[in-house]
């Protein structure tokens, strides 16, 4: 598309307008997201030990390698530098428990990068979130490891009973919120610890504070919009408040949004460009749908945590939401739908 012509001693570039472009590039966005994801990793290393760092590294390396190999095999330009595979690798590691065997993320990476991303046409064309498909696949393949390989976090002062390593959501689901409060001492202690990130859980999901910080930075930079995170977290809080308790309107919304993968999902997974609706109305509904499905799975489903599956299910709705909620046309010609 670009054509050049001799001009004195060099050529003039000729291309279509616009001739200036914003400095935001795909690489910039991706690497910013990577940077926002690093603090929770440091936190996780501090509370779960060096093991989680190794798992994350294995995950990232295998994702990048899979990306390079699949692109080579499919005859596509190799784009490992744009950072998208790195993000997938980090996110994949973040949604698996810290105590899993080291080979798990490798298998997850093949499923995530090759099957979910490259078979569907590469960057931007995937229908489902690669990291979450990786997790769902691992969940189906290694159900025991994926549901029990939790590690008791350091700096947590409760007694080392059999439930020490169980995730808070597991305790809430099967023993009730009272059991959780009993275990941790008091509600305020729960809030404090969960907010900082000292609780059992998947590698990257524990530190609500650092994830929130990263997410807010992305919103501030304009790389993601607030619609999805706010509607998703809001719906989870609201519905948990209504249905989460023994009677209506007795649930504890704060524990619900601080536990599980809500923060990680809301800011870094649900907002994945390729798999979320493009426009704000769709995004609001998408976020609310994720929230509702999360609460449904948490309260009524077979798993204690539902964010992963809720996002995957709503990913499936994204093309439909995109076709229903288009931007409002400036002033369409008469007789044509808006």
């Amino acid at each position, binding site marked *: 598309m670009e054509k050049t012509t001799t001009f004195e001693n060099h050529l003039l570039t000729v291309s279509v307008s616009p001739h200036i472009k914003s400095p935001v590039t795909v690489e910039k966005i991706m690497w910013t997201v990577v940077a926002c994801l690093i603090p929770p990793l440091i936190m996780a290393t501090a509370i779960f030990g060096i093991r989680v760092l190794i798992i994350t590294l294995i995950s990232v390396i295998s994702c990048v390698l899979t990306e390079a190999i699949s692109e080579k095999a499919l005859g596509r330009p190799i784009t490992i530098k744009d950072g998208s595979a790195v993000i997938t690798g980090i996110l994949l590691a973040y949604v698996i428990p810290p105590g899993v065997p080291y080979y798990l993320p490798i298998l997850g990476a093949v499923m995530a990068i090759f099957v979910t991303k490259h078979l569907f046409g590469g960057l931007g064309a995937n229908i489902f979130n690669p990291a979450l498909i990786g997790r769902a696949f691992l969940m189906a393949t*290694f*159900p*025991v490891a*994926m*549901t*029990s390989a939790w590690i008791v976090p350091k700096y947590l002062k409760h007694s080392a009973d*059999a*439930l020490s390593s169980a995730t808070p959501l597991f305790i809430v689901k*099967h023993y009730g919120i009272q059991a959780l409060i009993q275990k941790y001492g008091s509600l305020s202690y729960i809030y404090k610890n969960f907010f900082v990130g000292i609780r059992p859980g998947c590698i990257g999901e524990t530190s609500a504070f650092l994830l929130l910080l990263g997410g807010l930075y992305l919103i501030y930079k304009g790389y993601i919009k607030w619609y999805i995170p706010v509607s998703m977290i809001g719906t989870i809080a609201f519905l948990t408040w209504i249905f989460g308790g023994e009677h209506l309107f007795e649930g504890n919304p704060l524990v619900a949004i601080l536990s599980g993968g809500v923060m990680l999902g809301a800011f870094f997974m649900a907002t994945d460009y390729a798999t979320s609706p493009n426009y704000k109305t769709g995004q609001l509904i998408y976020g609310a749908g994720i929230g509702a499905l999360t609460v449904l799975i948490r309260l009524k489903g*077979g798993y204690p945590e539902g964010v992963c599956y809720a996002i995957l299910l709503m990913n499936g709705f994204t093309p439909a939401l995109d076709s229903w909620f288009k931007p409002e046309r400036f002033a369409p010609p008469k007789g044509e739908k808006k």
Partner: protein
Amino acid sequence: MKDFPRIIIGLTVACIASAFIMGVAFMLTIKAKKHNEYVEFKEAMYSALGYTHENPAPSTLQFHEVYRYILNEPKKDYMGYMIPLKNGKYCFVALNFDGNFLYKKDLNISEEEAREESAREKALSAVLNPSVKFFYANRIIIAVNNGKRVAYLLPRGFAGFKTTIKVLLALEPDYTIKGLEILEEEEDPGLGGEIEKNYFKNQFKGLTYKEITQLKVIKEPLPEEYRRILEQEREFTEEQIKKIREKYQDSHIYALTGATITSTCVTNGIKNIVKKFAYRIKVLDKIIKDQHINAVI
């Protein structure tokens, strides 16, 4: 319209022909089917009792079924048992909820026929007052060897994590668990589905009645030597087994990793089954004794 008669005749002939073929197939297979189903169930029973190909059941071993019914009369609810008699027929005994005898009726039905629910219903409605409504509740299978009770077999179901889990529980006459077979389950493969594995099932083996009543699930990893015993009992001597069982077997069950809920469901289910059964069999035995029923059991 001209073709109409031809179409109708053609369709009728086709229908009759296909009905004929299917009918013939049905007739040819129905007997084999019932037989095979019973054989399959019998194998499960043998397995629950601990008999294998190397250790076959004695030929004198016999199974007798006792069926429990709940009956409704206007303003009155009570229970009844169908008890097999020595003459190969059944008698029906009705008793109230406190276990007191109400009445007794003889039924004209053989043990073989009684396995069919519809046949039982027919026999019962023939002798009972027409105003009485009756509902089948469950059955007890009693294994008898040379006129002596060897074991009780209880086919039961309870709610699992996902769907109903159907089990066959074998008890010694003193209610110690002799064996457990999982007949049907639809738990998650690899997680709750592991209840079918020996290392889980066999944990129940040998639990006494007292232990069962206090049974609870613990979320600790299964000790390795215990697991080996549970999985491959035949490879060890009886002494070894006894030693290790004594060491680890108490009134607790090691939960399956990642499937605590299923483990709890099974444990509680079995606890309930044994408790209810122990209560009922006492009542039943008392009735048989008091009423001088010539029962085969």
